[in-house]
Every structure is written in structure tokens, then in C-alpha cells.
């Protein structure tokens, strides 16, 4: 089958009948995953600090170092969170935080080593902005920074911080955050070192349809070169409590926008095996619908989620709820690990 071109994708995004688009994405999902299994991972988001110098306009989570709400997690708190995660059959922690001006490379390597010596758990951590920040601070190349983190115990890198990989949009949304090229560079280096990563996209802020297509295209091109992305995760900007929503009247993306972008992502990213539905931003019911619009993975059980919650969205969901939601949508449910290997069927 011929690959969909950028021009055709743009046309679909702007004007295709949503049900036609969904049906095409559903067909593609079926041919990639004919066994009818929808996977999820049991993990915990651990945000080691909320202090961040980037201060992105779409974020409600960050604080200044001087803020009374600023924190850096202590080792004891961290270990307790990991123990709780393991007790719930968790296989992974998603370790991400703000760009804290006082935390150096030693903090990160010590943190990783302390986790790895105590626990058998996959550390999926430090998105590209964090990696670049460390590299710059210590005059390392990106490759060197990743190698050091990897040696200390980092297993895989989450695709956060991609937002929209279009510098025109980033200039408004996150002027201090790394540019598109740097984000892609971190991922490419990580893939070359044999690490797997995910890729995300935050849409529904101020981007144009062209920016979404550009984003999908750079992900597809990099994946052609490296094959290192395990999954693609589109989610929509949540405007509550953010600078961006105070400055401009950005209304949240609707369900139909979400399904359209999701379906198009499945169709465009023919070389990325897994597409995640985002129940955290869309709720369980729309996430179930997403399973028929291209998604084959339900993401994480999210034992703890701070960042989206800070933007006023909160769904409390147990593993039992996730398994039932997947089954009720007409699929078999299975727990997977970071690498999308199935470890338990329900």
C-alpha cells in the first residue's frame, strides 16, 4: 500500500468525513494488530520536582524555585512510591520533572542508581527537554548525556516535550523549551544507542493543521531511519489554570478533533506499531471509542498523575476499570511492559 502523502493527509485532516477516516484507521489498526488485543501498562508517574525554568504557557504544573509550593521529592518518598507501584504489579515508573536550576547531573545519576540498586523496575524517564538541559549545563553532547544517564540505569525515554514539532508554534507556546530539531536529535541519539522511546503530540492549542502534519511527518521520517519509537501518543491541550488560556481564548479541543487527529496519526505513522488512546485527557468513554479510531493501547493505569490534574482534569480509574473498559469496547485486555511485550492477559 502506498504511503499517504503530506498533501493528502492535510486534506483529510481538514475535510475528510470523520467516520470514513475512522474506518480507514480502524482497518489499519486491525491489520497491524489482528489478534484484537488492547494493551496497557501498570506504572506510576513520578514527578521528582515541579520547579522549572521553562515556564511553558500551556503548563499548570510548574513553580518557581521560591514558590511555597515548590518541591523536590526526597529519596524516601520516591522509594515509597516505587514500592507501592511494585505492589500493584507495576513494571515501570515514568520519571519526569521540571528543569530545576540547582539539580546537576550527579542528582540524576545518583537518583537512577539508587532506584536500580533497590528495585527491579523499568525507568522510563527524562524527556528530551531534561536531557538537553543536562547536556548544556555540563557541556556534554546529547549523546554523552544520554550515555551517562543510561549507564546510571535509565532504560527508555518518554516522548514528552514534543508538544508540536513546529518552531513557529513553539515560539509562542514554549519559547524557552528546546526547539524541534533538538527534540528529534535526542530521540535519534537514544535510538542509535539502542534505547526505545515514545513520541507524543500535544495539539489543540494554537497550531494550524499544517503544523500537525509537519509533526507527524518528522516523526515518520525519523522512525524510517531508526525504528526506535515504540508508540505514538497524541493528546489535546488542557487549558485549565495555564498562562495560555489566560492570554488568549483557547477553547479545548473537542472529542471530534481528538478522534480526527488520532485516526490520521494511525494512518500517517504506518511505521509506528502502537498508537495510544489518552483516557487521562479524554475520559474512559472516548478512549474506548478511540480504540475504533486507530488506537491499540490504553496507555497507563496512572497510579499517580500530577501534570494533567494541575490543569483541572481528573479521572480516577483503577486497573479493574481499565480492563473492563477494554473488554466492554470489544477487545481482549492485556498488561504489557515498556517494550509492548505482553506479560499478563485478563
Amino acid at each position, binding site marked *: 500500500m502506498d504511503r499517504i502523502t503530506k498533501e493528502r493527509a492535510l486534506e483529510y485532516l481538514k475535510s475528510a468525513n470523520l467516520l470514513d477516516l475512522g474506518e480507514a484507521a480502524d482497518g489499519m489498526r486491525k491489520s497491524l494488530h489482528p489478534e484484537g488485543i488492547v494493551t496497557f501498562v501498570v506504572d506510576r508517574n513520578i514527578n521528582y520536582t515541579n520547579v522549572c525554568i521553562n515556564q511553558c504557557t500551556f503548563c499548570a504544573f510548574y513553580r518557581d524555585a521560591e514558590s511555597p509550593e515548590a518541591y523536590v521529592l526526597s529519596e524516601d518518598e520516591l522509594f515509597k512510591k516505587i514500592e507501592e507501584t511494585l505492589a500493584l504489579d507495576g513494571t515501570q515508573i515514568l520519571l519526569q520533572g521540571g528543569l530545576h536550576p540547582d539539580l546537576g547531573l550527579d542528582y540524576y545519576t545518583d537518583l537512577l542508581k539508587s532506584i536500580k540498586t533497590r528495585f527491579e523496575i523499568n525507568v522510563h524517564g527524562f524527556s528530551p527537554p531534561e536531557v538537553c538541559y543536562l547536556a548544556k549545563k555540563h557541556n556534554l553532547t546529547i549523546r554523552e548525556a544520554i550515555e551517562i544517564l543510561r549507564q546510571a540505569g535509565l532504560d527508555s525515554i518518554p516522548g514528552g516535550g514534543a508538544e508540536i514539532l513546529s518552531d513557529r508554534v513553539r515560539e509562542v507556546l514554549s519559547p524557552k523549551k528546546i526547539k524541534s530539531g533538538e527534540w528529534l536529535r535526542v530521540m535519534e541519539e537514544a535510538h542509535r544507542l539502542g534505547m526505545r522511546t515514545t513520541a507524543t503530540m500535544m495539539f489543540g492549542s494554537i497550531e494550524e493543521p499544517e503544523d500537525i502534519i509537519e509533526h507527524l511527518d518528522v516523526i515518520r521520517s525519523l522512525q524510517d531511519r531508526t525504528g526506535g519509537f515504540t508508540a505514538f501518543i497524541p493528546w489535546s491541550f488542557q487549558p485549565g489554570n495555564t498562562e495560555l488560556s489566560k492570554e488568549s481564548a483557547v477553547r479545548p479541543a473537542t472529542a471530534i478533533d481528538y478522534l480526527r487527529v488520532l485516526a490520521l496519526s494511525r494512518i500517517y505513522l504506518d511505521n509506528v506499531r502502537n498508537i495510544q488512546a489518552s483516557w487521562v485527557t479524554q475520559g474512559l468513554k472516548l478512549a474506548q*471509542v478511540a480504540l475504533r479510531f486507530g488506537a491499540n493501547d490504553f496507555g497507563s493505569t496512572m497510579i499517580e498523575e500530577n501534570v494533567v490534574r494541575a490543569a483541572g482534569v481528573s479521572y480516577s480509574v483503577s486497573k479493574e476499570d481499565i480492563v473492563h473498559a477494554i473488554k466492554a469496547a470489544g477487545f481482549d485486555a492485556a498488561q504489557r511492559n515498556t517494550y509492548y511485550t505482553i506479560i499478563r492477559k485478563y
Partner: protein
Amino acid sequence: MLDRISNGGRLTRDETVELFRSDDLFSIGKLAAEVSERRNGNNAYFIVNRHINPTNICVNRCKFCAFSRSKGEEGSFELTIDQILQRLSSGFENSQAGRGLLKQGCGFSEVHIVGGLHPDWPFDHYIEMIGAIHRTFPRLNIKAFTAVEIDYFSKISGLGLEEVLIKLRESGLQIMPGGGAEIFAEGVRNQVCPEKISGARWLEVMEIAHRVGIKTNATMLYGHVETSEDRVDHLLKLRDLQDKTGGFQAFISLAYHPKNTEIGGFYSSGIDDLKTIAISRLVLDNFDHIKAYWIMLGEKISQTALLFGADDLDGTIIEEKITHSAGAMTGEGMTRDDLIYLIRKAGKTPVERDGLYNKIWTG
């Protein structure tokens, strides 16, 4: 089969059961969208309305209900007629409906009134309530009392159904909501709401209401313990009655909410919600409107349902208590702007309507 339906054929019972069992979401959805388009063009309706529950004290105490209380129980409440009038004396200044009605001090085009079966209130109290609202706001559409309440009024007053309905109509009631239908199948009904009137009685009340000139809605509560066949039988009974009377304005499928109820269980799936809407659109070929009731389905599924055969999102509501008692994750109300935004983003034309589906404003 879908071709035949596309050409105006009627779905049989077996065919409809087959549709519920099918996982061909897209063919069903697209055909439902086509049927909806034929009937209502690209329009999606909404209304600036307000819900009022006069009391949550109820002698029925259905197992799926988390709203009702017994008399004297903590959390029980009763509104006076003055309190009801007060709640209506405000509203959306930007409502198109409100521009006309605001002169009367009311910003809504419809009030939706349902409540518990109160052990002490006499039928006259309800007549007074409706009469007072109608006298105060003569242009407000009054939609009030489910078939279950009408049956109860007949019992407590000793009057026949027809007399009860005529008295209410004469006091100002124009429309009845479709609640209390739940699922008609007797076995299931005995499990989920043994104290409630039978399906046959619900249909009888509706038939008489239609005959005396009251328009009504119809509902189906699904996603609890019913089978596909139960759903189909329910829909077919509604279709039969509509053939006879033509008095139903809209059909509303109500997704069961499991929290704080005696039955428990899970929320229905978003896929089932969309499929149920689409199939309803296909079976109920004599209904003008299929409503995706956002308070029950959530605004995300409701918006999506506009592409699966639904043509109405209901309204601003303002204050919803019944579904929220059972764990609805939606807000209790939406603004007029929110509704217009959702409809536009679905690629539909927003049309503000009154309680009788007269067009007030087209966007």
C-alpha cells in the same frame, strides 16, 4: 439489509438484534448519519432550559437510583412553589430565547420538572405548581412529570389518567419528559425497579397524553442487566405507539450510571453509547429527533453522537441532580456558547429551539 434501510425500508426485530450484535460501527454509524441528514439536514438542536427537581423524597426507591431519599432521611429536600419560581427568575442574558422571555423575568425557553413520588403532597399541589409557573411565565414551555409521576397522581387523587393529564394540561403543562420507561422487559424491570409502573402502564400513560394533546419524549435506560433483545423490544414498542399517535418528539437513550446505586456494575462503553444512538435512529424511523443527552453521555460522546445519527444535544440544564447522584462526570450545566461550540466543531449547524422544537435561532 443496510441498503434496504437506506432505501426507506423498516428494520425487523431480528435485523435490529443483529445490528446490536454487529461490531460494524462504521456502516451503522454512517447510515444513521445519512438518515438523520435526510430528516434534519445539517442541523443540530439545543435549548436554553433549566431542570428543577421539586423533591427527592420518593416512595419508590428504585435500585438504579442514587437521587431518591425517604422522608426525614438525611439529604432529603422539598422546594416550595415560591422557591421554584425564584429559580426560574434568572437565566442567560445572551439567550435568544431569553430576549423574548426576559421581559417576563425568565431567561429560559423551557423548564424540565421531575421529582420523587412524595408521600404527602396532594395532586392539587402539583396543579398549583404548574399553574403558578404558567401564570408567572406564560411563554415558558413547561415540560413536567414522567409517566411514573402521572400514574402516581392518578392513584393519590383517585382520578383517571385522562383526567389527571387534562387537568395538568389546563394548568399549563405542554410537554412530558420521557423518563421512567427504563426498559420495558418485565424480567429486567423486576430486577432494576420492581416498585415502578410496568412497561405497559408507561405506554398507556403516553398514549393518553398524546391523545389529550401533550407532546412527550421517550427514553430507554440501557447498560445495566438487559439483553440486546430487551433493547430491541423496547424500541419496537416505542415505534408502534408512535405509529399510532405521532406524539413523541424525541427519543433519548440513557446510559446507566453505576455509582451509588444498588445494582452497581460499570459504565456503558462509549462504543455502545454511539451504536445505541445510531441503531435508535435507524429503528425509530417515525421519530423526528434523536437526542444525545450530554448530561448522561458526557459532552465528548454526545458531540461524537452528532455524527452517529443524533440531532439534538438537549440544553443548558443549569442544575442536574439525578444523574450526578449516580456518578455523572459531566458538569451540572453548560452555557449556550459551549453548546454552540460543540455543535460547530462537529461540522453541524447549531439551531436553538424551544420545548416544542420551534426554531428560535439558527447559527
